[in-house]
């Protein structure tokens, strides 16, 4: 009779274990960066440029220095004498730390003040006088490449214009041929607008340089502490072993807390100069106007179609507006991230993508906000193109997708852009979704409602996405390969501490990683404490973003647990006085195959590792694993939304929202559902109200929470989540695929497609997000597409 421990009881895989991190958060005892106080700490505030593009004629900080309580005023000039006015970005460009020659976007950092408290620092910032000479402004890619456009990056050699890169992938010739033979060509142009991840907690750092020990410690909001350590070593020219980055509790990341921001660098230099801890916590306006935004890509998409509905080829051209510096954190080989993951779930024989990136007078960024490296753009473009293609063919939306899906028996499948997808049950997921939304009945209802003047709509979005970047052959950031790591130490009494190279910002790693250990070793999850974020103790990893943690760090946790188990097996054999071949494992226990009642628990093996080792065995039960994922994982999702549009006002409401997510094995179903709902809410926000834009002078509209709208509990719809379809990942040690960003990737198109469906018959092909009431109204009333691209329209 099995004496294995009950996996769910000990909090193993599939247990909806209550979260460990909650214990401190619900008590208000979290340890976020702004909660940390160090003796002698000073405070830093940043002075930002009010203009989008201007030459700096002079900076007079004399009055700032005079204010009692001010310790230091830093300007670009001072940074330049230390070679710190510019720093390298994660995309092999350079970025200004503090402006020297000119400012290149509204909100750019111009100076900073370090004072006794932030109130005084702010007073001093106000006293700094900067003389600007305005220059012409560029707010979109068209302007960037127009004749006579000012060169924004005149600081760079060999940069004669505003083009950053031209990139392409796929088969141009084959695609052209397929288009030549098409029955129908469907074309769609749209803009995926700039958005901002905007976690509630802003960015910040406390830099603490200790002259006595020559060690620099930086507490900071970062999703990737080891990358930051390497970057700081480069930029500040300090030795890497004397730099400690500590990422404490983070109040939301969503990609906003990956880049290296000027504020961090300034706080570090200030601490070195003043030999005191310097805290910089930005305010929301600074966060929205200057930190890593997301998206801002224009698409021209074309699909070559056969009359029976088969997609023959896909052609895409994207223009990405990167802002003033190319600073994305993304795999270095792919200039436009994983945009070419589009159409991976469809059996498309051939495709071609060309991509251009340009500079503009806006904050730098593009890759962020639950995007999986531009997969949000890829899947949004894809599902909008698919919707219009189905309409152009006069075919039902669900049917068109179903006949083009990659079939279950076609795996492994080479996508038209060269990815290898390995698993999925796309048709089944769609079936589940259509049944849940009562598809046929809805279409009937929709038709009846239309007769009475009510506009109902249904939108489908399906996608598979490449998660878990990624294998060392293809993926690196700044040359560093994108593996991840786990370090597990099992103590004498069978309790353990686990550290990984990931960094949770709400995903619940302290809870879920312990569940993997419980699954592999039978040690109760509550006996495993999980730590992340301190580069002095955590094994080297590439951090948490792009939904890579479960696929890569989670895999490392499984692998290190297996290493521990392998050693424990030897100890068990020793304790049971049999040879290793005679030992079997069940959860939590080794036993003698021929005499199952004779066994030892994993805890007994732990004791033995320190007190009763076989001859020649190293003591201890601790190990580290580095995991280089063999491939990406490919979760799949179907999102279906129904809406009603008010024909008089353009206001639309969500009736129902169904999500079918196949993310393979779910470590903690409760946490997975939380991730999905969070992502769907961001999808809803992007489609409905979230909006950053610019006027012709480069003034940012959407640089505070009055203008940049996040939905509240009142507007946010309810969600119906389905988890029936589970296709384990064939190469992941526990079959998991990752889920963090799926809903943000696939969700927006479902909402937009639903509203467009409600408007069918008007001939409108596209309304750019967010689908604000005035845009929907304009589309309905004038039967025309509505663009949201900057500059924002005005009376002038």
């Amino acid at each position, binding site marked *: 009779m099995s004496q294995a421990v009950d996996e769910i009881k000990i909090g193993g895989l599939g247990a909806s274990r209550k979260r460990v991190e909650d214990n401190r958060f619900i008590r208000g005892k979290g340890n976020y960066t702004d909660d940390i106080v160090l003796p002698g700490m000073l405070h830093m505030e940043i002075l930002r440029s009010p203009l989008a593009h201007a030459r700096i004629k002079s900076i007079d900080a004399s009055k700032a220095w005079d204010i009692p309580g001010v310790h230091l005023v830093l300007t670009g000039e001072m940074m330049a004498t230390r070679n710190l006015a510019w720093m390298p970005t994660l995309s092999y460009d350079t970025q200004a730390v503090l402006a020297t020659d000119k400012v290149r976007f509204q909100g750019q950092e111009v100076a900073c003040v370090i004072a006794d408290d*932030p*109130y005084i620092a*702010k*007073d001093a910032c*106000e006293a700094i006088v900067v003389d600007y000479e305005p220059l012409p402004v560029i707010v979109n890619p068209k302007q960037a490449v127009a004749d006579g456009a000012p060169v924004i990056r005149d600081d760079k050699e060999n940069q004669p214009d505003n083009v950053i890169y031209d990139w392409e992938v796929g088969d141009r010739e084959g695609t052209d041929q397929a288009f030549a033979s098409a029955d129908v060509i469907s074309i769609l142009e749209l803009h995926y607008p700039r958005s901002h991840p905007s976690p509630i907690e802003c960015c910040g750092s406390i830099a603490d340089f200790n002259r006595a020990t020559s060690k620099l410690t930086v507490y900071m909001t970062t999703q990737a502490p080891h990358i930051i350590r390497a970057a700081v070593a480069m930029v500040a020219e300090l030795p890497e072993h004397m730099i400690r980055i500590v990422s404490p509790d983070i109040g939301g990341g969503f990609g906003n807390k990956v880049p290296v921001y000027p504020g961090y660098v300034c706080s570090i230099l200030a601490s070195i100069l003043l030999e005191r801890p310097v805290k910089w916590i930005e*305010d929301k*306006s600074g966060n929205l106007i200057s930190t890593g935004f997301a998206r801002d890509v224009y698409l021209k998409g074309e699909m070559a179609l056969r009359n029976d509905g088969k997609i023959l080829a896909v052609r895409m051209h994207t223009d990405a507006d990167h802002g003033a510096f190319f600073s994305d954190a993304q795999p270095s080989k792919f200039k436009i991230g994983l945009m070419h993951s589009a159409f991976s779930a469809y059996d498309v024989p051939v495709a071609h993508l060309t991509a251009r990136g340009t500079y503009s007078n806006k904050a730098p960024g593009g890759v962020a906000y639950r995007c999986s490296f531009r997969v949000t753009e890829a899947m949004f473009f894809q599902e909008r193109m698919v919707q219009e293609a189905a309409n152009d063919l006069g075919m039902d939306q669900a049917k068109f997708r179903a006949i083009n899906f990659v079939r279950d028996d076609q795996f492994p499948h080479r996508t038209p852009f060269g990815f290898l997808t390995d698993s999925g049950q796309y048709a089944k997921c769609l079936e589940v979704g259509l049944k849940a939304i009562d598809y046929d009945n809805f279409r009937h209802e929709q038709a009846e409602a239309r007769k009475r003047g009510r506009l109902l709509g249904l939108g489908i979005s399906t996608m598979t996405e490449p998660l878990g970047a990624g294998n060392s052959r293809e993926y690196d950031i700044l040359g560093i390969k994108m593996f991840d790591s786990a370090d597990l130490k099992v103590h004498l009494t069978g309790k353990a501490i686990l550290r990984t190279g990931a960094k949770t910002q709400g995903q619940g790693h302290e809870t879920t990683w312990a569940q993997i250990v419980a699954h592999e070793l039978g040690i109760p999850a509550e006996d495993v404490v999980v730590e992340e974020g301190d580069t002095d103790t955590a094994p080297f990893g590439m951090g948490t973003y792009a939904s890579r943690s479960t696929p890569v760090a989670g895999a490392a946790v499984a692998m290190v647990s297996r290493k521990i188990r392998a050693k424990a097996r030897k100890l068990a054999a020793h304790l049971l006085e049999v040879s290793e071949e005679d030992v079997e494992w069940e959860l939590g226990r080794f036993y003698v195959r021929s005499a199952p009642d004779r066994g030892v628990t994993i805890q007994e093996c732990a004791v033995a590792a320190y007190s009763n080792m076989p001859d020649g065995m190293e003591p201890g039960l601790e190990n580290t694993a580095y995991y280089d994922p063999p491939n990406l994982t490919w979760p799949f999702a179907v999102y279906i939304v129904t809406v009603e549009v008010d024909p*008089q*006002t*353009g*206001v639309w409401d969500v009736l129902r929202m169904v999500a079918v997510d196949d993310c393979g094995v779910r470590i903690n179903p409760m946490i997975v559902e939380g991730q999905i709902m969070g992502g769907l809410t961001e999808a809803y926000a992007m489609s*409905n*109200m979230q*909006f950053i*834009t610019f006027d012709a002078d480069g003034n940012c*509209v959407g640089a505070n929470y*009055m*203008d940049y*709208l*996040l*939905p*509240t509990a*009142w*507007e946010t719809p309810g969600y119906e989540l389905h988890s029936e379809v589970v296709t384990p990942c064939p190469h992941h040690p526990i079959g998991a695929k990752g889920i963090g960003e799926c809903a943000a990737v696939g969700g927006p198109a479902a909402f937009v497609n639903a509203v467009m469906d409600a408007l069918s018959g008007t001939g409108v092909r596209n309304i750019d997000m967010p689908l*604000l*009431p*005035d845009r929907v*109204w*304009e589309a309905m009333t004038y039967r025309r597409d509505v663009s949201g691209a900057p500059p*924002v*329209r*005005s*009376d002038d």
Partner: protein
Amino acid sequence: MYPSRFRYEAPHSLDEAIGLLRDGGDYAKVLAGGQSLVPLMKLRFASPELVVDINNVPGLTYHRADPDGTLRIGALTRHADLERSELLRGTQPTMAAAAPLIADPIVRNRGTLVGSLCHADPQGDWASVVLSLDGSVIAQSPRGRRSIPISGFVTGPFENVLEPDEIAVEAVIPPARGERAGGYLKLERRVGDFATVGVAVAIEISGGSVTRAGIGLTGVGGSTIAATEAAAALTGRPLTPESIGQAAELAAAAARPRTDHRGSAEYKRHMVKTFVERILTGSSRRHGDEAERAA
């Protein structure tokens, strides 16, 4: 996030408060709810030298109807008090419709109606409501009390006619002679948003006819707009689809919206028209029901 320095006083009587304002210097501000003033100070769009906090002045947290029906609202009456008010629900449909739409529920716990009127934000909701009801503001100074009709109270964005040593102590809504009807509709993209368009309609019905009408428009001009022609088109006749349609058109014409990121001027005018229609159609329907019941 960090206001500049200022002096702070928290008087315990109106006279004390007025005295402080009188002696206070060039730039003093009254602090009541603080939900408009403090945010401005945090962004340093307002940097008063003296802040006179009137939250400790007794006797200002009332709202009541006089025997003749005049509604009086004290300076420290919070939006939340009005949102919960049975009195408003029963007798002031326009006000009752607006109260829940001010800012968000937590801001409503502190912010005040009188403070909102004084703040004179062109996108403030209460101004349209009070305008539609022909309300006024009672101000007190060393020279005594005076009543200022709301239509003459605001002189520009964030500017009112109060003298430096004057405090607004009460908002007054004159009594109705007929049966009140109306409402407030606000196009906001989410709770807490400023109005893209807000419309306040307040009418009185007597003997089957509209005897009084007022329409106030939020967010469609440099300041709150009184759509007087539209209101006149309703008065002196029964409420019918024709009169409603006319009023709606005239209200839209009175609007002076700008095209901006919230929408085109045309859309905003269209929404003014739509909201006027929806409010009055709702009113019309309710009154039709009551008339049937009474018959």
